[in-house]
């Protein structure tokens, strides 16, 4: 199967590969997987609690070229965006940008899920933290 140039580019030069400290309260981690192909994708972002801007994003994906490209693109897109903006990224945007064929659409779904999971994790951490901080101040 022929991959689009953009997929090949992201595959050969993946952006933002790596990891962020998971325990950092400002880091949200999203770990998702697709059972049909065994792909697993970890997406992490460092979010400024004041501005809610995503300052840094890293990923590591074990999977096919499309899964790697989708997550690489996702990290590029979320950087500099606010949490709300990042949540509005749809898998169809990724499909369009990378010209993914129908059989690879689930890779883009995985990337969208990873963004949502990472932000969810950050929100959870944040929520718990706010409560703890409130308790502490009383």
């Amino acid at each position, binding site marked *: 199967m022929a991959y689009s140039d953009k997929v090949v580019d992201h595959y050969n030069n993946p952006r933002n590969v790596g990891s962020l400290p998971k325990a950092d309260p400002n880091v949200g981690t999203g*770990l998702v*997987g*697709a059972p*049909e192909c065994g792909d697993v994708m970890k997406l992490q972002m460092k979010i400024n609690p004041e501005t809610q801007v995503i300052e840094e994003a890293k990923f590591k994906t074990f999977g096919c070229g499309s899964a790697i490209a989708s997550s690489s693109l996702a990290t590029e897109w979320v950087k500099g965006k606010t949490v709300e903006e990042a949540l509005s990224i749809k898998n169809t945007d990724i499909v369009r940008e990378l010209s993914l064929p129908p059989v690879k659409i*689930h890779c883009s779904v995985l990337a969208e899920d990873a963004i949502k999971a990472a932000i969810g994790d950050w929100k959870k951490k944040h929520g718990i933290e706010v409560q703890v901080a409130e308790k502490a101040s009383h």
Partner: protein
Amino acid sequence: MSTAPTSTNTPLVCWNCHERTVGTHFCSACGKLQQIPQSLDYFALFEMPKKLWIEMDGLEQKFLQLSWKLHPDNFVNATEMERELSLQRSSELNDAYRTLRDPVGRVEYLLGIEGERKEGEKKQQAPPELLEEVFELNESLDELREAKESGGDLTALRVSLEAARGNFQEKLVEVDGQLQSAARDWDAALTADSAARKKIMARLNELLNRRSYIRNLVTNVQKELL
């Protein structure tokens, strides 16, 4: 065949004698080999109820009987229509046998005909409690590949990967057990209401996903350990 099909009862019209026929494979009126009815699923083809526990000897017996009856050798001197049908039906019979013989393939097939498992349509989630382990395993696999390329020391990596393989193989055995028990639930609920059956099918689907995920992992580890 004297028995009526179990799950398809729509009367069909024979292509040869134009009579309504109730035979699964041959016309009940003129005895000619029939086209594959669209509604005929693999269970009905073997004239079995849609149960997940299948007695293997019985299945094999029926397969051999049907193979014998539908075999193209029997139709060498028949019309072109019958020769073609015999080919089609024999190949379908082989597919059906292969599918039903495999306990996992059987469940996949059942969920497919019940509309509970469609390729790519439903978003299937990987078992979240496994993801951490899966990720770590993949990282170790990567390390092993790199070490192999650079000629590094593989002993420690091998030991940890073998442990991981053992761990996932155990999980595979566990999920197979769960699948078996869910299959028994399905058989027991054969006449239950559709909500109850849907619930069991959802469970079966979830277990199948889990199984395919773990299986892929075990296969990958095995490849690297060779």
